């Protein structure tokens, strides 16, 4: 037996031990819940002026009929699953929002590509106007352009022919101003975050400085790029490597109106953002360098007048929640009045920008909620079925109670109380378990994945390193209350039937 085998044996047996401990813990926990439910019952029934037989007999019936457990377990599963899944979905939603927000800033001014002979947008003036608004905390100009990435001795064509990986060849060049970017987006954070696959830049305060591995005596290339973590890895790059970027530019002479331009850049390092998408297909470059590249000017030359140098302005507000709508309207009008933008431009909040994705997650959450509510409904129906059975079975008891002085209302209460215990134990146990599972879901998933040797949650597929979950007390309360009312409603039907039974018929014979 070699070492790794021994190791797996050890982890397997410790996983079993963990499982036994977890189950034991759960059993203890259930006992505690039943005890709490019993205490609640005693207190509650002291408060309600119901005949003592309601509490006494309903509890007795519950304990002596193990079939009642099915109802309790059903409610428990329904409530637990609802709380757990909804918490995870809420977590997904919030996590997605925050991570999108980090990379998207609060608002984005979209300046669509200029068609000659319109003069280019003046980034400097636009930024001045935007920053003059007291509600704006920071703003930065972006120049975004599509590009094709190749490297000497690389396999770009191979990548192109592979639909799975062709996205690594077609990427988005983002021209940025380092200092502005630090204040308005999470650019800086994405530089200092430890890379998963790539190599950080040597100096995050001057990210576009030539990397130490680069021999500047050669003179070429003169500008640096920073690639997304996964893109960096897909091309098997090292810091100091050269890459060739090919971009389409306007060319009236060409048949199709554009031609390709290429330029060599040096790789300064990689960044890791909180969004998978960006790490896959974004390359940062200095905005001025991208503008020169597009205009066909050398790296050290002046930028020719009339060259395109901005395509978006990212805006960060001091208080997004309160100022969003007013700022959006007023800023747009101000820019338009000063003729800095035209009607083809758009000022969108990040939510509008990413609306469809957020909407999809929200939709999914609602759908899951509905589906799991059906589980709860089935559980309620089980309670209904079991109670109906019990009422038929206990006809004689109802007759006895009546003969000893019970009113029909009392018979109703006895059976309704059984539904009440089902709901109390099931919903309480489900709520506690659901909340615990929701809070510990990441650890539980890791443990299960390890124990079962399969990956349940593939972290590479999602943007997140951990399974997010947010427990909303209000939602938990609503679910518990809903389960309670639903169960009581379903229990009320057989209970009502119990009240309508003819006591004499049940008493006539054995």
């Amino acid at each position, binding site marked *: 037996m070699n070492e790794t085998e021994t190791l797996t044996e050890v982890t397997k047996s410790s996983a079993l031990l963990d499982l036994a401990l977890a189950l034991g813990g759960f059993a203890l926990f259930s006992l505690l819940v039943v005890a709490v439910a019993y205490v609640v019952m005693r207190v509650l029934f002291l408060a309600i002026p119901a005949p003592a037989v309601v*509490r006494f007999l309903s509890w007795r019936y519950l304990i002596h009929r193990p079939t009642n457990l099915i109802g309790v377990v059903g409610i428990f599963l329904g409530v637990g699953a609802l709380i757990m899944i909804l918490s995870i979905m809420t977590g997904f939603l919030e996590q997605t929002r925050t991570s999108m927000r980090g990379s998207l800033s609060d608002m984005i001014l979209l300046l669509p590509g200029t068609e000659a002979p319109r003069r280019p947008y003046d980034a400097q003036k636009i930024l001045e106007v935007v920053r003059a608004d007291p509600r704006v905390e920071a703003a930065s100009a972006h120049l975004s352009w599509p590009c094709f990435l190749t490297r000497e001795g690389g396999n770009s064509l191979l990548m192109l022919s592979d639909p799975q990986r062709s996205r690594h060849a077609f990427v988005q060049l983002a021209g940025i101003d380092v200092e502005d970017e630090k204040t308005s987006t999470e650019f800086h954070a994405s530089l200092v975050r430890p890379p998963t696959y790539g190599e950080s830049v040597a100096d995050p305060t001057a990210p576009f400085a030539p990397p130490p591995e680069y021999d500047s005596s050669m003179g070429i290339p003169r500008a640096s790029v920073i690639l997304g973590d996964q893109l960096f890895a897909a091309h098997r790059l090292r810091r100091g490597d050269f890459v060739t970027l090919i971009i389409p530019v306007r060319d009236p002479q060409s048949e199709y109106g554009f031609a390709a331009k290429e330029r060599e850049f040096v790789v300064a390092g990689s960044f890791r953002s909180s969004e998978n998408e960006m790490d896959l297909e974004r390359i940062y470059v200095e905005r001025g360098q991208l503008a020169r590249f597009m205009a066909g000017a050398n790296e050290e030359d002046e930028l020719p007048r009339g060259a395109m140098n901005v395509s978006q302005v990212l805006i960060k507000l001091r208080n997004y929640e309160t100022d969003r709508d007013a700022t959006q309207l007023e800023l747009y009008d101000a820019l338009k009045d000063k003729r800095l933008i035209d009607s083809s431009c758009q000022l969108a909040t990040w939510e509008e920008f990413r609306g469809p994705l957020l909407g999809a997650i929200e939709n999914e959450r609602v759908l899951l909620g509905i589906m799991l509510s059906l589980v709860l409904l089935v559980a309620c129906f089980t309670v209904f079925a079991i109670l109906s059975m019990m009422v038929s079975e206990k006809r004689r008891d109802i007759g006895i109670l009546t003969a*000893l*002085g019970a009113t029909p209302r009392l018979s109703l209460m006895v059976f309704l109380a059984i539904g009440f215990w089902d709901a109390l134990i099931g919903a309480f146990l489900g709520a506690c378990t659901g909340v615990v599972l929701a809070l510990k879901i990441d650890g539980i998933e890791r443990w299960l994945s390890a124990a079962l040797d399969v990956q349940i949650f593939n972290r590479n597929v999602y943007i997140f390193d951990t399974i997010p979950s947010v427990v909303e007390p209000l939602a938990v309360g609503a679910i518990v209350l809903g389960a309670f009312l639903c169960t009581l409603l379903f229990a009320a039907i057989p209970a009502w039937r119990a009240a309508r039974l003819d006591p004499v018929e049940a008493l006539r014979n054995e």
Partner: protein
Amino acid sequence: MSLQPIVLRASAVKKAYRIARRALPILHGCDLELARGERLALMGPSGAGKSTFLHVLGLLDRPDSGHVEINGADAWSMGVDGRARLRNASLGFVFQFYHLVAELTAVENVLLPSLIGLNTFEFDRRRKELDGRATELLVRFGLKERLKHRPTQLSGGERQRVALARALFHDPPILIADEPTGNLDRETGEKVLELLFEEQARRQLSLLLVTHDERLAERCERVARMDAGRIQNGLRA
């Protein structure tokens, strides 16, 4: 004896069952009087309507017409709650088939009238005293070793003694027994009856006893006979 007041009076009680739209008359105007401390046997062939009449007297089955007075109050013109209180406090019922609740122990079955009559708070407060009384009653009925037994763990005679203790627990003035020994062998039946008569005498109960046993009827002060829904000798002479 005839000076004793009437505690239970039925007058002109009629009852018919409706089967397939046709009324099937069972009771054709029955009259009955039961004085305080009196033992009255009700006899008659099977199907005469004895149980039906008892259910009307026991406020379990509403008559089509006629009145049932308990301590002078017309029970069937009361509300549901008032009648339930009368059943709980003034009437004791013993059935042929014991009718104990299977989930409860002997003591708990005896406690049932109190469980129904008292609210939770009151019951919890008086639990000790009530438990004591129920136990004492069962011990007197020779069930000292059977207090915590469930009905299925008891013999027929023992079950009927528990049922008798339950009927007597609230000390009701009226006890209605529908063939209480009908399901027991002679010897066991005798023992239960001894208890029944002993308690009746001790508590000055008014006992209405349905039986097929002539020797038993002889031990009662008065015997009413029922046949095809009519009663003879139901009223006091």
